[in-house]
């Protein structure tokens, strides 16, 4: 078989796809998200120094942490804009880990007292 023919076959076996896919945010949007993340982090540290009862402090810290987590995943990792398949892949691991370890912690009464 001619070398050129082999190359042609190899090329046709691995065709490439080119096209316009999901829209990604603009640099201005990225900067806005960064400002929001910085403000939330500042709030987290600020409420740490307030003399709040644990029952109030901990839910607020988890709320702020959850907002930051969601903003990064949706905007910076583009799950809001990309194919849902990526989100499903990630959620399998994330939700699986959350469920598994929550069950473990509850089983060992990690939150008691």
């Amino acid at each position, binding site marked *: 078989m001619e070398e050129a023919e082999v190359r042609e076959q190899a090329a046709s076996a691995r065709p*490439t796809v080119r096209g316009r896919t999901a829209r990604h945010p603009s640099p201005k949007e990225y900067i806005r998200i960064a400002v929001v993340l910085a403000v939330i982090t500042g709030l987290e540290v600020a409420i740490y120094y307030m003399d709040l009862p644990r029952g109030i402090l901990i839910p607020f810290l988890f709320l702020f942490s959850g907002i*930051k987590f969601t903003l990064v995943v949706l905007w*910076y*990792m583009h799950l809001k804009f990309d194919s849902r*398949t990526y989100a499903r892949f990630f959620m399998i691991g994330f939700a699986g880990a959350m469920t598994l*370890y929550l069950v*473990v912690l509850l089983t060992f009464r990690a939150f008691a007292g």
Partner: protein
Amino acid sequence: MALAGHAVESEHEATSTGLPNTKLAMWLFLASDCLLFGALISSYVLYRGASVTGPYPGEVFDIPYTSVSSFVLLASSLTMVLALASVQRGELGRARVWLLATALLGMTFVGGQVYEFTTFYRDGLTLSKNLFGTTFYVLTGFHGTHVAIGILMLLTLVAMSFVGMVTQRNSIAVELVGLYWHFVDIVWIVIFTVVYLIPTGT
């Protein structure tokens, strides 16, 4: 929020899903890494407050210092997405600057973590001193290792860009490293809250 973004033009091998396999693989890897960090964070939570000898978290943590480290890592996520946006627009020179900035911020974070570990060690908190020391060093050490690997990936991207292996048409390489970098960032968001900010009932 304004939706004045840019459509992304990408090129990849044809696949049965229509999506690049490399990106699917990266998401699958990140999903598996959730299980790894979930185990480490759970171990820390499980043994929180169970140490029978000090030093205890409240005696060694320096929250203002760690807060600055958190801001540094958040800033690195911004520079990472700006690098991706630059390469997707074909501005390779600017992308290199943002990639190097991201690596530099990552090095600052890791350097800060080394300094923190050294300080804790001098305060008597070793890996085997108590349950807090063991779970803390293993969790934050694994995270720091991830950041260090990310820095190597970023520097490799910069080197690749000089030999034409990172281009506008091949921007997926930057996107994959970006996904890894942001994942490291979201893990730190959780660690900062669970390990540093939530009081241990002292």
